[in-house]
């Protein structure tokens, strides 16, 4: 009898635990719903991966490999960009093929080498799921559809703004101790000798342009970038200028993830010909070596590290 009683108690505990997911706090806002969807494998064809599989929160919602793996470990062709600080961006993806966050948000879901789930099927799944159906009804006053799925994901992405780096503290609060003297000199180099500011300006240190920085040579480096979208010869090898906030935690770098460290990036810009000797259509801004000394390279790197939001740990002291 005692044994039976124990078994009954155990069964009851299992039942309560199984009910757990149904008693989770359900999202009440677009942002909260988007956050839930962002981490849910329901949006991938094989239900194995989610947005967060490649946009890892601890790495500023970027990935740590040159290219990410999609469903069935299918290899992507471009480095996963951070989705943080997207609110003020004018275009999305390395080739800028999406003009809005809403449009961007749906593309990886249906991409066969990423999440591989046609949007119509994704909507069908969400409508069959009690939690999501209820949540969409509550937030949007309608059942899940393509438009509100995009809205929810984009709304979450817009919450991922960061403006609390040591650099911000230095500039906005005039806290002179927030960054090292080396980082301050690096900021001067960034604005001066190193010429970075010509492309990396604005609240997130990029602008709305596309530039060819010399990573297209038609032989080993064959990603045509923006030209594949616009079909214009002059856009060959051009890519979106990458934002620099939290750059220290989003290695590797460039559209193909070919540089493993910030120092490699700085070395490249210092003398691009040493790395890619025969580029096609490289921007004239990079026509001459910068002739940075080792100390200046370090100062630039220290400045870039100072753009890391305080929520992320950086091994190097600022």
């Amino acid at each position: 009898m005692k044994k039976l009683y124990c078994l009954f108690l155990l069964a009851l505990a299992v039942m309560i635990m199984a009910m757990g997911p149904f008693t989770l706090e359900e999202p009440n806002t677009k942002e909260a719903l988007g956050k839930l969807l962002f981490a849910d494998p329901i949006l991938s064809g094989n239900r194995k991966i989610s947005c967060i599989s490649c946009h890892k929160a601890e790495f500023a919602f970027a990935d740590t490999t040159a290219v990410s793996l999609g469903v069935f470990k299918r290899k992507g062709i471009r480095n996963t960009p951070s989705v943080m600080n997207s609110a003020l961006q004018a275009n999305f993806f390395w080739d800028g093929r999406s003009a809005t966050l809403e449009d961007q948000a749906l593309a990886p879901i249906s991409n066969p080498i990423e999440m591989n789930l046609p949007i119509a099927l994704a909507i069908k799944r969400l409508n069959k799921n009690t939690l999501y159906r209820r949540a969409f009804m509550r937030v949007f006053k309608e059942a899940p559809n393509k438009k509100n799925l995009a809205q929810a994901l984009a709304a979450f992405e817009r919450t991922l703004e960061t403006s609390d780096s040591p650099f911000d503290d230095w500039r906005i609060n005039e806290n002179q101790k927030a960054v090292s003297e080396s980082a301050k000199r690096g900021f001067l180099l960034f604005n001066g000798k190193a010429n970075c500011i010509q492309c990396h300006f604005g609240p997130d240190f990029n602008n709305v342009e596309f530039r060819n920085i010399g990573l297209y040579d038609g032989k080993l480096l064959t990603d045509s970038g923006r030209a594949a979208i616009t079909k214009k010869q002059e856009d060959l090898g051009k890519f979106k200028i990458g934002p620099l906030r939290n750059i220290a935690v989003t290695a590797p770098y460039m559209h193909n993830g070919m540089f493993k460290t910030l120092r490699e990036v700085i070395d490249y810009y210092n003398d691009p010909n040493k790395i890619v000797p025969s580029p096609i259509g490289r921007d004239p801004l990079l026509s001459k070596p910068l002739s940075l000394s080792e100390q200046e390279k370090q100062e630039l790197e220290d400045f870039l590290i100072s753009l890391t939001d305080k929520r992320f740990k950086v091994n190097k002291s600022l």
Partner: protein
Amino acid sequence: MKKAFFTSLMAMALISFSFTNENNPLVGRWEFATKYQESTLNILTVFKADGTFDLFANKKPLVTGTYQVKHDTLFIADALCNANYSATYKLKFFGKQDSVQFNVIQDTCIRRKTSVNGVTYKNALAVK
């Protein structure tokens, strides 16, 4: 004697500092808000007494540079446009200098001109 000399030096420094501020009504924090895509863009410009300024968008540093005010004219330069070229803007203050409008006199930098010309900033302290 030495002490008196240093005291008078310090007094002179203080006087010149306050003189600079009095003659430069732009020193301080100025802000305005605008719409950008789905978001609100809060622009804050901090004009410092040392002749430098910082411009922030949603608390993120956007541009840094140098400036000078002579009478009602602003001379402004930044590395983004050209650190060695000073654009000129007419300053028009409103009320008890609680807001200011920038009207271009000469600026060859289109990027700056389109985002500054005609914009009215409110004094960040006055609007609190």
